[in-house]
């Protein structure tokens, strides 16, 4: 069995692999696929926006509009402040669509089989820690920015730093908050990366295990991956909103607790 695997040359790399270099910058397979994912996202959203502007409708436009409307409702439900909800809308919705389309790109035929200089061309950006970590950093920084805006610099700092002599429990809680902020960011990045990476490996392994039956078996797993892609995008989207909502409502809750 293992020798069979070896014959198929199963190659798994945690990091994205460099395809070529431009001005000293390594262009990886994930970066290239991610660029395609972004182009698809922009094309879909621009097409839908232009069609809506012109009053043209079809099932696809209706579907995207339906998803968009659902996401907007979700934003308004999670973030009570309408002004903040409106400000968070572009980031949260872009995260959802970019993550979903990039995740779905891992289902394209040619995954781990089309290679240039022995490096697979296709690798979902969601299966690259650079991409997921970038999204997590953006989310955590945005949450901090809005927390400072709503609570003030000192108000936000009070969430983490408290006088251990006056309030030892609070000080410990603040330390936990700092750890929590880092762990949230890391969890955001690793959750998406882990799912996408495992999804890609799953498809390759199923392909190798089922051999000629793969054309019958793989679609089932591809459908499953499509579903997982949607779920992961939705989870990232919802967590971004929840972290923002928690950060800006922290002061009120703390006041209520002390009262």
């Amino acid at each position, binding site marked *: 069995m293992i020798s069979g695997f070896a014959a198929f040359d199963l190659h798994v790399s945690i990091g994205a692999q460099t395809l070529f270099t431009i001005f000293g910058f*390594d262009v990886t397979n994930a*970066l290239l696929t991610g660029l395609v994912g972004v182009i698809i996202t*922009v094309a879909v959203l621009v097409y*839908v926006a232009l069609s809506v502007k012109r009053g043209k409708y079809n099932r696809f436009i209706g579907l995207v509009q339906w998803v968009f409307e659902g996401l907007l409702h979700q934003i308004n439900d999670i973030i009570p402040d309408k002004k903040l909800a409106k400000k968070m809308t*572009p980031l949260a919705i872009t995260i959802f669509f970019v993550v979903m389309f990039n995740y779905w790109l891992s289902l394209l035929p040619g995954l781990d089989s089309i290679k240039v200089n022995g490096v697979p061309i296709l690798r979902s950006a969601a299966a690259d820690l650079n991409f997921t*970590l970038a999204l997590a950093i953006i989310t955590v920084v945005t949450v901090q920015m809005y927390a400072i805006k709503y609570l003030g610099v000192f108000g936000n700092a009070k969430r983490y730093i408290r006088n251990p002599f006056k309030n030892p429990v609070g000080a410990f809680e603040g330390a936990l908050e700092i750890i929590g902020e880092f762990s949230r960011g890391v969890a955001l990045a690793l959750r998406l990366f882990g799912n996408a990476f495992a999804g890609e490996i799953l498809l390759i392994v199923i392909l190798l295990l089922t051999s000629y039956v793969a054309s019958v078996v793989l679609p089932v797993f591809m459908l499953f991956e499509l579903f997982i892609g949607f779920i992961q995008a939705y989870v990232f989207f919802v967590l971004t909103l929840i972290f923002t909502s928690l950060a800006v409502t922290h002061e009120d809750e703390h006041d209520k607790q002390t009262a």
Partner: protein
Amino acid sequence: MQNVTQVAASQGNIFASLGIDWKALILQIIAFLLLVFVLGKWVYPWLMKSVDERQAGIEAAAKATAEAQKSAEANKEAVAQLLAQARKEANEIIGTAKLESAEMVSTSEKKAQKIAERIAKDAHEQLDKDVVNARKVLYNDTLELVGLATEKIIAQKLDKKTDGELIDAVVKAAK
């Protein structure tokens, strides 16, 4: 497949072993923020506008439905009132019609009775006249028969003169 820790140990960098390239990371952050800015500035407003319009349309439709429902309920009440009024009026009309018909029947009966009585009276009068006429006819016929019988008995033609003589003779004989 190498273990991450093995790779990290060989390269001496956990980030490199996970494939994290700081240049790529920063580039992706900038690219994504740029994408958010572009979409947020030129694409989402149209979609949000359409959602708002759709929402406004749904709200307007819901409002119109509520108003229509309200007006339907009001109409229902008005219709119920009209129906009750109509039923009341119909009952009154039926009552009046019954009374009027009863009066008409009574009047007709009286009229018919009068006509019948008049017809019966006329019939009686006509009958009496017919009886009188029949009697007259019978009397005359009897007289003629008597005359004829007398002619047969006396074997001569009777005329006024003979008749008179006979009558006189009979009267004398009677005396």
